[in-house]
């Protein structure tokens, strides 16, 4: 468990560069949805992928920094409630760290299931609970509006993390050397 929160130089660098890609995807690679102010964000797929490889701290910071930065560039100021919710989502995604065999070159059946259960839990906590509650507390937005937005966001980000995250992890596993791939002749 303690390993989960270990911060090495690699974690920090992964956070920095991960957040840079997150910002980029967040701004340019998204598909608008019918519910206003929400869209299908490919960035969360990337966030889930990095969180699985580098842990909850990296996951939380990537989503937090990435979201805050892209908000700041586009709107001049971050929308704090959703930025914090992004951080929470990234943090929960990070619990898939070391729970799958992706570093050993294997990402199939059970690992895919583990990863997806964790990412759905993360998205639900972040978008159905944290984001709407903070929206109401900080900005006094109408209750039914923020929950509608939250549920939409949870569904779309789960799909994004599920589809893109899983595909990325499979691709990544293929680049790792498999355990026991060497045999003595």
């Amino acid at each position: 468990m303690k390993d989960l929160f270990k911060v090495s130089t690699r974690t920090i660098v992964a956070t920095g560069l991960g957040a840079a890609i997150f910002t980029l995807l967040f701004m340019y690679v998204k598909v608008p949805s019918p519910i206003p102010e929400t869209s299908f964000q490919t960035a969360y797929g990337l966030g889930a992928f990095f969180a699985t490889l580098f842990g909850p701290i990296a996951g939380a910071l990537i989503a937090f920094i990435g979201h805050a930065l892209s908000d700041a560039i586009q709107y001049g100021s971050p929308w704090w409630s959703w930025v914090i919710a992004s951080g929470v989502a990234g943090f929960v995604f990070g619990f898939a760290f070391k729970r799958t065999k992706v570093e050993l070159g294997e990402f199939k059946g059970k690992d895919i299931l583990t990863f997806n259960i964790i990412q759905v839990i993360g998205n639900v906590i972040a978008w159905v609970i944290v984001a709407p509650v903070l929206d109401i507390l900080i900005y006094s937005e109408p209750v039914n509006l923020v929950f509608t937005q939250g549920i939409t966001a949870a569904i779309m980000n789960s799909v994004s993390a599920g589809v893109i995250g899983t595909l990325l992890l499979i691709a990544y596993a293929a680049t790792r050397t498999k355990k026991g791939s060497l045999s003595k002749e």
Partner: protein
Amino acid sequence: MTVKAKLFSYNLLDTPIHELSGLTKLICFLLLTFAVMFSYDIRVILAVMVFSFIVLKISRIKFSQIRLMVIYVLIFLVTNAVISFFFSPEEGVKIYGTRHNLVAIYGGMYITWEQIFYQVTKFFKYGSVIPLGIIFLLTTNPSEFASSLNRIKVNYKAAFAVALTLRYFPDVQREYRDISLAQQARGLDLSHKAKFKDRFKNALMIIIPLIFSTLDRIELISNAMDLRGFAKNKTRTWYTTRRMNRKDFIALAISALIFISTILISVFINHGRFYNPFI
């Protein structure tokens, strides 16, 4: 998919705002944004807004620098206003506890003065934060930003991650554009002509090479940093730290004053976050 946004189009000018240290600007930005985030009193919000426009003027930011941002924000504010109304046309009545009908619209729904007041307040509330953010972004040296974060007690490792993000964002952006052009040259269609499913798949064809080249780069950079002994000590120093001088303290004092008076107005005059002119 054109990528043209410039991150922190910071340029050094000789204005009092540029002279302030990054730390000062960060704290002032947080104080002022928290003040308007907290308050739903239109008088406070407009005062902060006027103040931030004056600061915007002093820092000599040109409209051409922020035009795109302003357009985005206006679109956001208008959609927010429209959907808040349709989701909750009685929000104003709920908040202010009175009802003054203005016009009846379809099906027993009314546009009330309360709702208009609530939405106008909200419009300015969100709008007033924008100049503050713009001032902060455009007058702060990005490399000084990380050291300022560290000085408000953000762990230096996290501050360093932010510095790395700012440093590598332009690189990632360039790489994204290169990959995207290369894939398009091979016949990948990213325009609106392609089907939704294809566009999704095609976006993935750009993301995957981008991520895998970044993973290589992560190894490279973290090895280089490890070799130079990064994170061996509990604290670190920064090249770009500036000393605080008299101007910094004046700016901090003004922001703190605005922040405290916002809280005091809410507690003693409005008895809550909302200013209620209806009773």
